[in-house]
């Protein structure tokens, strides 16, 4: 294998224009498989979710899952596609043991949805339109385990073991038209597209679209053409790029690799490539010199799908607000910048923040806790914000306790700590740990007097007009009350006692 020198990203762009095509597979969250009633629950014992139909046994007949079709139409509509008046399934024949039928039931030249687009927003707010060629229905394959080779790879394996629980789970494949004009931003556009698509799928409620679980998988097609040339170059297809960051890295790597090959006078092989998470590189897989002959033909065992226009319009009525528009609306409502909104999204805090607002908290307080203390803790523990053991209702209650003056920020943080440690609800933690703000004016007044007495020099400065020095006395009082005083009230008391105007 020859190793190609990578060209610096700037040099790639000086000579070439990238063209991308993205194919995304989404596993639908239906209860049953696409063509039979087997359960789709994850984690079941091997081969306990199969039946004669998904095992391809003689005499079995498939029947389409109505929810699968409905989900496909809703995805198509959300992607601004036309929905076919009439379309068929097709058999995609191939010889590989991951499908016991020896073919995958898919759609060929009659996809259920076609001619759409998805507008994606880049980090600086620029909107880029990605055109959708088609979205079609098909089924997932079984899971292979390769035995006898190094680290479970198919190369060098002596035999393979097949679990067909996944074979037949509904998939929607979404294919873009060639994405041109992204230039330097191609990797960013690729990532933003997949991210937006994932948000859209989640908002539609048709799949959890968790890339780390393989519920959403992306293939990145990339080619370069010399700047000014109309004709596309030869493309490579990097398979199974399964995180947003990887989509960006794979695109960038392939741009740099292609330029290296082309600059050296070489030609790009039309091939599939494997992406390596560890170093962001790709290596050669299967060479595809010509289109594979899958001998597609219409599936005789499934009758055509002809969604009535009434049904399509009814489904259009169920579409949620598009994630991009929803984000922009919330950003405006909250009065925060693009950058701040991006941080919220990156932290996965949008849903918890909204749930906390729904539970009665003001938007700014909800954002403050989720993006502050809770984000910090999630980061420390290496978990998603959503999986912290605290509910939006509890965070809302915390906001309430702060608003009514029962807790200050420091005590609120201790309360969060207690809730996360499993000590109970915020109210229980406050009780057990004795975290209430000292609001007894007598006790507070005494603590203030002591602080003034113990810090005479500072007190004099304040009397002399250096109001800023009051901070030191506030600190002393907070220390004496173990943080359980309302700092603003302490400051008021200090200034009052020293006869100074705040």
């Amino acid at each position, binding site marked *: 294998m020859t190793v190609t020198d990578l060209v610096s990203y700037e040099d790639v762009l000086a000579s070439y224009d990238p063209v991308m095509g993205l194919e995304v597979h989404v596993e639908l969250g239906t209860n049953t498989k696409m063509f*039979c009633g087997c359960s789709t629950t994850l984690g079941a014992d091997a081969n306990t979710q*199969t039946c004669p139909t998904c095992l391809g046994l003689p005499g079995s007949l498939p029947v389409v899952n109505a929810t699968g079709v409905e989900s496909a139409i809703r995805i198509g509509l959300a992607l601004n596609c036309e929905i076919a008046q009439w379309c068929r399934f097709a058999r995609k024949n191939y010889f590989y043991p991951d499908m016991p039928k020896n073919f995958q039931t898919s759609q060929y030249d009659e996809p259920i949805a076609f001619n759409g687009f998805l507008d994606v927003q880049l980090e600086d707010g620029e909107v880029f339109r990605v055109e959708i060629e088609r979205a079609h229905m098909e089924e997932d394959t079984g899971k292979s385990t390769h035995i006898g080779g190094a680290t479970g790879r198919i190369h060098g394996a002596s035999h393979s073991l097949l679990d*067909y629980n996944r074979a037949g789970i509904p998939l929607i494949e979404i294919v873009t038209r060639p994405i041109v004009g992204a230039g330097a931003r191609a990797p960013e556009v690729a990532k933003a597209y997949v991210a937006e698509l994932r948000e859209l799928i989640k908002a539609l409620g048709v799949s959890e679209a968790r890339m780390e679980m393989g519920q959403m998988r992306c293939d990145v097609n990339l080619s370069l053409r010399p700047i000014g040339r109309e004709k596309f170059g030869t493309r490579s297809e990097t398979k199974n790029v399964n995180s947003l960051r990887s989509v960006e890295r794979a695109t960038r790597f392939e741009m740099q690799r292609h330029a290296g090959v082309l600059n050296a006078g070489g030609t790009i092989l039309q091939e599939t490539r494997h992406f390596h998470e560890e170093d962001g590189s790709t290596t050669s897989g299967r060479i595809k010199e010509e289109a594979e002959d899958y001998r597609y033909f219409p599936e*005789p065992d499934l*009758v055509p799908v002809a969604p009535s226009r009434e049904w399509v319009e009814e489904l259009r009525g169920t579409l949620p607000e598009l994630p991009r528009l929803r984000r922009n609306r919330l950003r405006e409502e909250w009065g925060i910048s693009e950058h701040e909104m991006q941080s919220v999204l990156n932290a996965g805090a949008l849903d918890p923040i909204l749930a906390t607002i729904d539970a009665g908290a003001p938007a700014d307080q909800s954002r403050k806790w989720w993006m502050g203390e809770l984000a910090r803790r999630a980061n420390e523990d290496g978990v998603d914000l959503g999986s912290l053991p605290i509910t939006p209702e509890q965070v809302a209650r915390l906001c309430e306790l702060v608003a009514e003056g029962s807790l200050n920020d420091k005590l609120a943080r201790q309360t969060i700590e207690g809730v996360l440690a499993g000590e109970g609800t915020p109210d229980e933690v406050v009780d057990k740990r004795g975290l209430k703000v000292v609001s007894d004016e007598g006790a507070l007044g005494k603590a203030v007097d002591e602080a003034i007495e113990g810090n005479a020099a500072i007190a004099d400065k304040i009397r002399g007009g250096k109001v800023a020095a009051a901070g030191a006395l506030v600190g002393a009082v907070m220390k004496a009350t173990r943080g359980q005083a309302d700092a603003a009230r302490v400051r008021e008391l200090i200034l009052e006692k020293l006869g100074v105007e705040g």
Partner: protein
Amino acid sequence: MPGITREEVAHLARLARLELKDEELDHFAGQLDDIIGAVAAVSEVADEDVPPTSHPLPLTNVMRPDEVRPSLTADQALSGAPAQEQQRFKVPQILGEE
């Protein structure tokens, strides 16, 4: 000209893992040849103006509700497998040595 030879039927039977006796091969080879001949006759009649038929019945939208039905047990599923290991179908080496 026969549509299919006895040797081809024997080959197909092996691919389909069907064990056929000699007299069965003779019998099926003749039957299959008749069927292929009949299909060939239809192909001759079908002209440009006849669209290919994928489904003989004018049915559309046959769907089932998304409700779980009982699956086979793993033992049942694997009962027809020539080889198994770890409750999985065992298949020969996929990629040959290169």
